[in-house]
């Protein structure tokens, strides 16, 4: 089972200080997240799920603890190495879709690929395949202004998937979407985990997601209160919190 663990967080702690008030957001938290699963971090807003996501994904440095991702101690890497690690292994989907208004769907997806140094043909091929995978092949040449919210989020997912990351992080990916679009997005994320064996870690307070997750970590006040495995075919995950 251990070989399926993609991320291992140990003793993670994080506080934010505003003025003279210091707030403990994550408290001595340890967690393992497995490949090939859609893991959901759920809980009320302010429970620390987005912060945990940021720490596990190499965006926010923790005050204490360590994160081992794909066998690499993430927070021992320098800034450039960390950037390179993210480039090669990590995909992100954010609540705001953050698409460049000037680019059409293919270009949105090609843009991060271009930093990987792939050839023009391979870049185009991967971008088309990724758009195909999220069901937007017919929207390839449209700009964000011409797409619905759900379609924009699917372009953002295609942008993250085209790099073929082993780790995919999604922060509130369905919060800004109607139920049908939200459902589509969940299905795509779930399929990415199943088909590509990607670790998908999703922070959300959207209750619709719970039914689709392979595993749900319920968080409150910076701790994991419950770790639930759902009856999808499991591929292995543990918390040691």
């Amino acid at each position, binding site marked *: 089972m251990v070989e399926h663990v993609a991320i291992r967080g140990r003793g993670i702690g994080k506080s934010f200080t505003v003025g003279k008030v210091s707030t403990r957001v994550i408290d001595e938290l340890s967690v393992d997240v497995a490949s090939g699963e859609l893991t959901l971090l759920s809980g009320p807003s302010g429970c620390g799920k987005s912060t945990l996501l940021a720490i596990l994904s190499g*965006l926010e440095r923790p005050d204490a603890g360590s994160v081992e991702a794909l066998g690499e101690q993430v927070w021992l890497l320098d800034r450039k190495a960390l950037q390179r690690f993210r480039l090669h292994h990590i995909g*992100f989907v*954010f609540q705001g879709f*953050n698409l460049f*208004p*000037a680019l059409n769907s293919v270009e949105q997806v*090609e843009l991060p690929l271009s930093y990987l140094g792939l050839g023009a043909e391979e870049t185009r091929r991967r971008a088309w395949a990724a758009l195909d995978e999220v069901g937007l092949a017919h929207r390839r040449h449209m700009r964000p202004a011409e797409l619905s919210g759900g379609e924009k989020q699917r372009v953002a997912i295609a942008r993250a998937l085209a790099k073929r990351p082993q780790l995919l992080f999604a922060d509130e990916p369905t919060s800004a979407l109607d139920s049908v679009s939200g459902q589509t997005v969940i299905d795509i994320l779930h399929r990415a985990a199943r088909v590509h064996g990607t670790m998908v870690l999703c922070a959300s307070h959207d209750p619709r997601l719970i039914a689709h997750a392979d595993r749900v970590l319920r968080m409150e006040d910076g701790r994991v209160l419950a770790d639930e495995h759902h009856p999808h075919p499991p591929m292995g995950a543990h918390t040691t919190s």
Partner: protein
Amino acid sequence: MVALARKTLVYEWRRYLPASLAVAFSGMLLLVQLALVFGIFDSAAVYINASRGQIWVGYPGTQSIDLGRSIPRDAQMRLLMNPQVAQVEPFQWVNGDWRGSRQLGSVSVFVSGIDPAPDGLVFARAIPPALRARLEEPGAIIVDRADLPKLGIQVGQSGILNGQRVYLVGTTSGLRALGGVNIVTSLATAEQLNVGGDPRPAYYVARLRDPARAAVVAAQLDPHDRQRRYAVWSASTLAARTIHYWLFETGAGLGVVFMSLVVFLVGTVITSQTLMGAVAGSISEYATLNALGASHGALSRVVMEQAGWVGVAGLLGGGVLSAMVLLLAHSQDVPVGITVAGVTACAVLVMGITLFSGMLAVRTLRNADPARLLR
């Protein structure tokens, strides 16, 4: 490679328009002020630039052509003895006092006495041969048409110059002087007007068989002697000395530098603010790219490329604007002078404005912290 910088510029052109306009107007201001200053001070050297000779002989140390003093006549012989010299001609300079109509009072004028022969050298470019021939008439004068209101006469009318009656036989353009009015007469008329002055000419002008050898021949002809009574320059050297003298004598040179600094500052403030606004407006998108692994260097290159294109668009716009303003100035007889070096200097300064602004805008990218997208 996705051309993010260019596609964004084209798609969101309204956002970048103020920057390009700021650059265009900065470029126009720089170029027009330079053209005006050079135009004005070029007219200080009009005697040289409107003439055909390549060699000028005058009083040693003369800093500006209008400061000439009489030189000995044997200079002419020395010139003619050189086999390179094809033609030599005296140029007389007389300061004058003009009295036209009573309402205008007196006007300080510069009288240029030239050889009215059809192949004469001085002012050959400004005065056509037929008009030049009319200077043979005693008391005949020619002026720039833009100076007519100052003198208060029309062609065919007469006025009093240094107490003697002279007649305006025609006008031309490109003869405007700095700080006075140029009046062209024949050498004979100039001699009569030179009441009580040194009858010897202030300059000799020579035409060479090979115009390209002006600098070499000028060096050969110059006596190179501490006690020399005349000095020899190539036409371009004397013109440059004259323009240089006026630029610094009047403080205009410093004015140009100061104005350029002000334009640079204003252009940079507007351009950088626009670019910063554009970067700030796309900060989440840049942060997302950074999260996905694009380095800050790669994002900075996008911003710098945008600045570069804004600069190129501004340069083109500024070029069109400048051309329009300068054509308008030219049509109104406002002296303007454009040199390749001047245009190049303005273009470099304008690109400097955009690249400097780009660097300031790149600093805004520091806010593209992907962790903020998760708060």
